[in-house]
């Protein structure tokens, strides 16, 4: 009962013009920032951090959390419209969102991504409110062995990402893992494969690689196939560009499953929305009656990706608020915001400053409603953008990609990396080698290596099998690769 009265008090604190304007501004800024490739949710929160200095602790946190929440959705807009994920967690949204746009169904992609984001956001917040404490206790039981196993489980999604091309997927994921070793070794600090080039000490920045592999390679393929001379696919004027309520309802279980999964994964520090969306997408594809439609414009794929990455926001706030451990890089910036306002994240935050915590919880519900309203308003504009001819759109994508790649580290080297990866992605796609597993390998590479070596140092390889949670995750990962592989072999009569 206490919980609900605290929540009502929190909601009461938000009932005024100023708090509502703060939340609306946070949501609007978050959507815009997320839609810009190169501006990650953590960067958006960090950029706006100084604006919270003059606010009360509650309002400052409310503003930053609204930005964090909305930027996760914003990343999906460019993923759907131009195959350029605005944030790393929107990579998976592009798998089915962009094919839908290519078919002239951008409305469905945008509608589903918005509704799934909002649904996932609500699921994440409800779980955050109800289960903060037990989930935080579970996350504390994770050792490096479990993190390694979790990352391997994430890696096992290549079985889905490659669209049945197993051998090519394994090659691509290993290429991603190998490229990820460039830079300083995460444990010893030894310089690896940098050729003494200082800019390579931090390895390849993830965003330029992402933009190159997804956006530029797509543009190069479009130029090669002569798409610059073809008029864009016109939407069917007979039907509304938006999905019907029935179409949304068909996806309800996908959203709920992905929402819960995203929250749970979001709780684990370092896992975050990107891994959550990869795993949720994979689960959805496996459960689907029509798995072959995934990657070709399946609304369930968009729903799973978006619901999971939005719900991971709620998950990431669990260890942040209850233990003072950030569940994601954006949550790490939020710790800074708490400290600026003399608030120590951890169990005492709930007892000493319940008004701050519950105002924040309530504000997330309100922010989700604003996200739905502003998202619906903005999406009408994005649908019109899909009608721009490719010969006009492609040069803008190049220019936009430059900004996105440059903004991360203010480095022209990164823009060059983006171009090189664009050409690499184009060449690989021509040979039917999927590029998504490369990204997956680069995302999970550091997590896998660090936790593998730490576990070996702590007690050897046997530790992976002695810890029940780690063993369970590894068995799940093994099964999720081997079972579909055997099924596929039986179906095709042999051959990878």
């Amino acid at each position, binding site marked *: 009962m206490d919980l609900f009265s605290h929540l009502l008090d929190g909601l009461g604190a938000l009932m005024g013009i100023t708090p509502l304007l703060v939340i609306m501004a946070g949501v609007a800024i978050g959507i815009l920032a997320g839609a810009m490739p190169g501006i990650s949710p953590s960067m958006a929160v960090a950029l706006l951090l100084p604006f919270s200095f003059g606010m009360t602790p509650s309002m400052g946190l409310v503003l930053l959390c609204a930005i964090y929440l909305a930027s996760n959705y914003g990343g999906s807009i460019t993923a759907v419209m131009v195959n350029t994920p605005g944030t790393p967690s929107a990579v998976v949204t592009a798998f089915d969102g962009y094919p839908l746009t290519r078919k002239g169904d951008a409305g469905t992609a945008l509608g589903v991504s918005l509704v799934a984001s909002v649904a996932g956001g609500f699921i994440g917040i409800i779980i955050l409110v109800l289960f903060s404490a037990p989930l935080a206790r579970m996350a504390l039981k994770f050792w490096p062995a479990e993190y390694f196993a979790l990352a391997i489980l994430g890696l096992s999604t290549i079985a889905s990402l490659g669209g049945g091309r197993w051998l090519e997927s394994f090659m691509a994921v290993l290429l991603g893992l*190998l490229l990820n070793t460039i830079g300083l070794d995460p444990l010893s600090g030894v310089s690896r494969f940098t050729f*003494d080039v200082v800019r390579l000490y931090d390895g390849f920045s993830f965003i330029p690689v992402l933009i190159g592999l997804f956006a530029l390679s797509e*543009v190069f393929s479009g130029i090669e196939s002569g798409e610059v001379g073809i008029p864009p696919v016109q939407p069917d004027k007979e039907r509304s560009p938006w999905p019907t309520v029935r179409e949304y309802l068909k996806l309800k279980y996908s959203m709920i499953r992905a929402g819960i999964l995203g929250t749970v994964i979001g709780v684990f520090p370092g896992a975050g929305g990107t891994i959550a969306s990869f795993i949720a997408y994979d689960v959805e594809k496996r459960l689907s009656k029509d798995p072959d439609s995934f990657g070709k414009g399946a609304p369930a794929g968009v729903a799973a990706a978006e619901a999971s990455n939005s719900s991971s926001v709620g998950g990431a706030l669990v260890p942040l608020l209850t233990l003072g451990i950030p569940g994601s890089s954006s949550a790490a910036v939020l710790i800074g915001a708490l400290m600026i306002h003399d608030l120590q994240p951890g169990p005492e935050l709930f007892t000493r400053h319940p008004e701050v915590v519950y105002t924040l919880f309530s504000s997330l519900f309100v922010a989700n409603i604003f996200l739905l309203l502003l998202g619906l308003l903005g999406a009408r504009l994005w649908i019109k953008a899909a009608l721009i001819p490719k010969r006009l759109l492609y040069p803008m994508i190049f220019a936009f990609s430059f900004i996105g790649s440059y903004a991360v580290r203010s480095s022209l080297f990164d823009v060059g990396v983006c171009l090189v990866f664009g050409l690499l992605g*184009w060449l690989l796609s021509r*040979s039917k080698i999927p590029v998504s597993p490369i990204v997956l390998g680069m995302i999970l590479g550091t997590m896998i*290596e660090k936790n593998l070596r730490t576990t070996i140092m702590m007690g050897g390889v046997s530790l992976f099998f002695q810890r029940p949670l780690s063993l369970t995750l590894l068995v799940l990962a093994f099964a999720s690769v081997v079972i579909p592989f055997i099924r596929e072999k039986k179906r095709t009569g042999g051959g990878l």
Partner: protein
Amino acid sequence: MDSLLVFLGGVDSFPVWILSFLAVIALTAFLTRGKHAPFRGRIIICVSLLFLAFAFFLLSFGLEEIEAVGSSARTAPRLWAAGLAFFTLDQLRRTLLGKAPEDPKTGDVQRVLLAAAIVAFSLWGMEIVGYLISSGGMILLLLLLFGERRLFILLSLTGGWMLFSWFVFIRLLHLSLPAGIYFG
């Protein structure tokens, strides 16, 4: 051996690596005439990946070992390079046996290369004339390359982008975009 590894891992070895890579590709292209010609692109990609795996494996011997840390910086690169070589060799075997899909029909590759060249040129130009002029020039050239001839569209898109990026990225977001040597 140690001095060779130090050389190969340094910036001075770039020409050696690039020339070796080009030689391997040229040799592969030469050897894949005849019945393997429909798979040439795929074979070249496989050989490139094998070259990459070999390079990483070789260079891993030159990585410094720090005993106190208790685990080696060489472990992961060797593991991934070996895995990549294993799967790529199998792919190569399947391709040579004709079990892999043939290369797709070549489209307008010339236009792709021209577009990439314009983008690379613009990237180089950013250090000289700055982001705004360079990206504007790039947009104009790409529009022309893609067949746009309407003067109003050419000028409004180029100018519009320059204005937009100046206002949003420089004025509003305070991104320090390259200003170039003349305007910096």
